[in-house]
């Protein structure tokens, strides 16, 4: 383990590069999602400034899509902001989980990198082999993902037409493929991981049939139920990390 205050600049440099590498799959995965967001934003009547601004300021895919449909339906500001909050409240769970593995660094640094927590950046960071998650690693990872999100939101708006349909459709697998690639190596080593992911997957699939559990709540509930119940069933006898 690294002695926390004394990380040399060389180590920081290496961590930063590792982070950028780890962020590349996310950058690829965000490409079609952000591109389509830009297209839809234009169709919903947003300006380029508002479209890119939303990606820069909010940086949360699903809620940005929902915001577009609500703008198109002329929903009120309060309703829009409340929906965004509900969609994104699951980040509480990720932030708390990340804190357990975060390197001991000043709070203002954590306050900066906290902005970049998404389903994808969290999943990559939390399953990485790093002993402690440092700001250098995390910012390399997150800024790679963020750049893709912002740039391709603008590109989608400006291009005004979609990617070729076959490419658009096949690229839709990218983020899921990444999640699978993060999960499988851990699952091969630990039955507990299989139980955790399997339980949450089944629960979330069931919840998707319940209208008020769609979106943010389904993911929070299924994750929590799985993480808590498996912790009590598997009494820490299979800890290999």
């Amino acid at each position, binding site marked *: 383990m690294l002695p926390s205050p004394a990380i040399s600049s060389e180590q920081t440099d290496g961590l930063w590069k590792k982070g950028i590498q780890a962020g590349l799959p996310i950058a690829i995965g965000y490409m079609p999602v952000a591109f389509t967001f830009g297209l839809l934003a234009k169709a919903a009547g947003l300006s380029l400034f508002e479209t890119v601004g939303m990606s820069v300021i909010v*940086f949360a895919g699903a809620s940005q899509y929902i915001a577009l449909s609500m703008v198109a339906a002329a929903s009120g500001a309060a309703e829009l902001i409340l929906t965004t909050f509900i969609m994104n409240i699951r980040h509480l769970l990720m932030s*708390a989980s990340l804190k357990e593995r975060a390197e001991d660094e000043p709070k203002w640094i954590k306050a900066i990198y906290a902005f970049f927590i998404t389903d994808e950046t969290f*999943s990559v960071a939390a399953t990485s082999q790093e002993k402690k998650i440092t700001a250098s690693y995390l910012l390399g990872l997150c800024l790679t993902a963020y750049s893709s999100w912002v740039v391709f939101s603008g590109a989608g708006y400006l291009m005004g037409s979609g990617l070729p349909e076959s490419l658009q459709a*096949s690229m839709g697998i*990218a983020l*899921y493929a990444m*999640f699978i690639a993060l999960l499988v190596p851990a699952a091969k080593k630990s039955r507990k991981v299989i139980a955790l992911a399997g339980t949450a*997957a089944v629960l979330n699939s069931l919840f998707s049939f319940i209208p008020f559990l769609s979106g943010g709540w389904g993911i929070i509930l299924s994750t929590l139920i*799985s993480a808590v119940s498996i912790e009590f069933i598997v009494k820490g006898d299979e800890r290999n990390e």
Partner: protein
Amino acid sequence: MNENLIWVIIGMGLVTYIPRMLPLVMFHTNNLHPRVQGILKNVPFAILGALIFPGVLTINPDSVLYGVIGAAAAFIAAWLNLNVIIVVLASILVLYGYTFL
């Protein structure tokens, strides 16, 4: 309306940022009960399950099979311990090929 929308976007940004930031910056979790620590360590793997299902089955609204094929390609590539980025590219390629069948 336009000026209004910018404020709405800033509001969206704030309510998104606060849950991201609060636990990392505010909570004092140094003396957490081991059980709670264990639960928090479980979160990444549980959430991966919830993020993959049922979402992956709906990437093509017309065909569940499409998502199944993509997921199977990713699973096989990941099983072979290929790098994440290779897994992603391989899955895209397999589905791209499949659309021409």
